[in-house]
């Protein structure tokens, strides 16, 4: 008998996460699209700019530009597929908004982590990037990737409810992430510079993580109003 008690947010979020992973594993549409997009934009960067000749700051910025565009080419699919196929009605009925947001955020974090783990090594090799402090390099990638996925998820949920859907994604999502792009590029450039003081590195990673946590907090409070029909 249904006893009217709802399962916890975490278990519902994990259910949504598992479902999305299974569905993604079956079709693999998003991951291939995003990977293909990022590898091609890497090639564009390589051919166009003669990557090896760029200074450290430009190389760092270029990496983040590639990752940003890769994220905004596919991370809205977790929402778009649901809206287009009409599966959101039952999901809205049975899962609480916070669980849906958390589940979709986990999917996007995993997707972006997979893409970054492919794109970053290729970029480092291709653009002859000499990393002075690899530990910090990875932590900047992780922190900024977390913030990028968080913002991409909530903006994706918004544009999924709009009509001209994917055309809007970059236009609406990028301004939210401009500060992150600046600080992440600055942080990655510091990682390439052997003389960079640890305090500066620590400061930028802290700043990036703070930005991501801020976005997740704002999204958590606001998401029910995006997700629910009233």
């Amino acid at each position, binding site marked *: *008998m*249904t006893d009217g008690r*709802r399962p916890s947010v975490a*278990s519902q979020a994990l259910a949504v996460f598992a*479902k999305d992973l299974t569905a993604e594993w*079956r079709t693999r549409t998003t991951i291939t699209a995003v990977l293909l997009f990022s590898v091609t934009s890497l090639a564009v960067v390589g051919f166009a700019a003669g990557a090896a000749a760029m200074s450290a700051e430009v190389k760092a910025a270029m990496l983040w530009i590639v990752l940003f565009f890769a994220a905004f080419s596919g991370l809205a699919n977790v929402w778009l597929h649901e809206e287009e*196929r009409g599966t959101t*009605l*039952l999901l*809205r009925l049975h899962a609480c908004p916070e669980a849906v947001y958390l589940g979709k955020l986990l999917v996007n974090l995993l997707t972006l982590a997979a893409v970054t783990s492919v794109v970053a090594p290729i970029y480092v090799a291709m653009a002859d990037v000499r990393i002075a402090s690899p530990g910090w390099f990875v932590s900047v990638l992780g922190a900024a990737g977390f913030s990028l996925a968080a913002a991409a998820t909530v903006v994706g949920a918004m544009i999924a409810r709009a009509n001209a859907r994917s055309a809007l994604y970059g236009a609406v999502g990028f301004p939210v992430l401009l500060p992150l792009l600046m600080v992440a590029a600055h942080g990655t450039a510091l990682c390439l510079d052997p003389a960079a003081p640890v305090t500066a590195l620590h400061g930028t990673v802290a700043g990036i993580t703070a930005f991501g946590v801020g976005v997740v907090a704002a999204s958590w409070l606001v998401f029910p109003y995006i997700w629910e029909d009233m």
Partner: protein
Amino acid sequence: MAECSPPDVRVVLANTGRAFGRRWAFRGVTAQVRSGGVLAITGPNGSGKSTLLRVISGLLLPTTGTVDVVFGGVHCDAASRRALIGYAAPEAALYGELSGVENLKFFARLRGHRLCREDLAAALSQVGLLGRGRDRVADYSSGMRHRLKLAAAAICQPALLLLDEPGSNLDAEGLECARGLVERQRTRGITVLATNDPREAAWADEIVRLGGD
């Protein structure tokens, strides 16, 4: 599960209305259905049958009037009411990439139930899909997909079963399964179905006609 008396659940609509901007989907609906009862909502296309079901389910708020769902003496608001509800409708799709069984497990897990093989077998056999559970829903025919929706709606013995056009895309045998489902629900709580097919409306004890004015 011992078939104890159906839980005390009651749905009371008092002058319920819903408008989108300045257009009224429906207005002034007053009805009540008690545990073990079946209420049918009929009316021409566009008279707001599906919207009324959504308002009862708590997915949409009524613009005027109230919708009271009382479960075990406790009034459930829009959010807490959802755990009691099973919902099946043409526009409520299931996940095409997943198999029939995975869909049932997913929706049960969302409601905190772990389904064992027997539950799954029972649910599938009730709608005549036994043996097709492992196939992907994308490969189902529209009639099979609708049967799976009925199974997904009834999977966790909901106290409140909401069915929008329960017989759509169904053949004679499928219709019989749907009727059986509604009859079985009488021992578990309430059914509210929206239809304009007289055969389905005949399953109900009480009928509310929309779009009359």
